[in-house]
């Protein structure tokens, strides 16, 4: 199977500060790749480089290549808006659109891109909410404000919203860090299910979570990719001393 992403010599800066240093890695299709590492090591910046969100921060800069299905998303003539429709994102803090209903939140991506057909929207909203495991909890109340849901429900709403535009990849930036343990385990279960059809890259602070949900794990430290491989191997026989120290909790 060809890798979904091939990242070549990726560097990223905030102003003069370099936050990613020469990253090279391949991300496999329809698998879960966890990005772990201590705070400030560039995990979030890394996944924001994968859907061209990093450059939106004033003063931010990127160099290198990110091949997505073989096409460099930083290449000439590539529209980042189109890229982001294929590569969805779920953020650390649930961020449903506050003035919109549950239905409109999920439909937002399609509606704002010009889909008006009520039947299509109904189908997509239902399917996305089902995929995100939220349908049964909200099906009688789709007109309610998205902001009225609990934190865990809001995050699943955001996942449904991201899935509604049928992306190929889902980038998740510490999606459970603001959630309680029950919501967290629901979302972890969801990630495993979604991995059958989607490529998932998840940033996590929680080492156990990486071990539970991911097929591959990448350990970042001070902007560098220290070690990358199958999760089992990283956790059972890490090659690098830093990796071992981090996953055994000696620092981080």
């Amino acid at each position, binding site marked *: 199977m060809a890798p979904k992403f091939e990242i070549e010599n990726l560097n990223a800066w905030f102003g003069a500060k370099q936050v990613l240093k020469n990253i090279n890695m391949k991300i496999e299709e329809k698998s879960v790749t966890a990005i772990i590492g201590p705070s400030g090591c560039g995990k979030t910046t890394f996944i924001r480089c994968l*859907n061209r969100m990093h450059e939106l921060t004033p003063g931010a800069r990127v160099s290198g290549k990110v091949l997505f299905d073989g096409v460099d998303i930083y290449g000439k003539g590539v529209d980042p808006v189109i890229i982001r429709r*294929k590569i*969805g994102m779920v*953020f650390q803090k649930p961020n449903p659109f506050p003035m919109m209903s549950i239905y409109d939140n999920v439909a*937002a991506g399609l509606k*704002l*891109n010009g889909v008006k057909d009520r039947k299509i929207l109904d189908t997509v909203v239902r399917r996305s909410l089902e995929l995100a495991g939220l349908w049964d909890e909200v099906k009688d109340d789709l007109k309610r404000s998205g902001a009225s849901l609990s934190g865990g429900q809001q995050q699943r709403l955001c996942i449904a919203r991201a899935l509604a535009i049928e992306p190929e990849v889902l980038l998740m930036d510490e999606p459970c860090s603001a959630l309680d343990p029950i919501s967290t385990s629901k979302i972890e279960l969801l990630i495993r299910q979604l991995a059958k059809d989607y490529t998932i890259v998840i940033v996590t602070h929680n080492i156990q979570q990486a071990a539970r949900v991911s097929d591959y794990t990448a350990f970042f430290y001070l902007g560098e990719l220290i070690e990358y491989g199958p999760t089992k191997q990283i956790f059972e026989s890490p090659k690098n001393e830093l990796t071992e120290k981090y996953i055994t909790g000696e620092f981080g």
Partner: protein
Amino acid sequence: MRLDYYMIRVIKDRIALGLVFLSLLLALIPLFSIVYEVFLRGASAISIEFFTQPTPTVGEKGGGIANAIQGTLITIALASLIGVPIGLMSGIFLSEYSEHRLSRLVRFFNDVLNGIPSIIIGVFAYTLIVLSIGFSVTAAAFALAIIMIPIVSRTTEEAMKLVPLSIREAAIALGIPRWKTVTTVVLKGARKAIVTGILLGVARIAGESAPVLVTMGYWRWWFEGLDRPTANLALNVFIFGISPFENWIMLAWGSALVLIMLVLGINVFVKAYVWRGY
């Protein structure tokens, strides 16, 4: 020794508190005395006729200010029609494209415009419009629109900046183009505060008199067209108030009362509108 020091502090505290209350009272005296006087004198002018009849001629008894209410509403509507879109769009530009080279310049000129005396803006409208089509409601509305633009622009900018970055990012990550993110998601989030800003702008221009005086002049009849003047509440207060005719002076008080009620009404509506939402 220690006790004395403590007592001094308590006395200082009392004095400061007393001064604060005194200032508050001093600031409120003009407000209440104006409202009291206007209500007292204006109320005697109020009748059914007052709200249904146009202004009478000199010496004529009775009459009302219906034409001035009509004229003021038309003028405000026309001014808003010009001023709101421009103010709104420049506010959106300032908030969403603040990295643009022009934005600092626009913000600076916006602030300058906000500080220009309204009579000067009136004279500007006079040279630009009155000299070509004559004293008219169009010229007055144009002047008032210019006064309105910086108010609407500033409040729109502030309102949009309050919409959290995470909401914008959510939209952008869905592959929604930036302009659409702004015009739908962000504008929707800032809607209440923007409406508030627009209404406060309306309240501000409703009571403007100097620019209206130099662009519309005096008109005692009903609205006759956009190229003609209309009657105006603020000008009623000015022109009738300094006239020697008792009936006119009474109408001036009545106009002042209606004007105050209009502005007060808008402010109360804004407060209620904002409170309901949060």
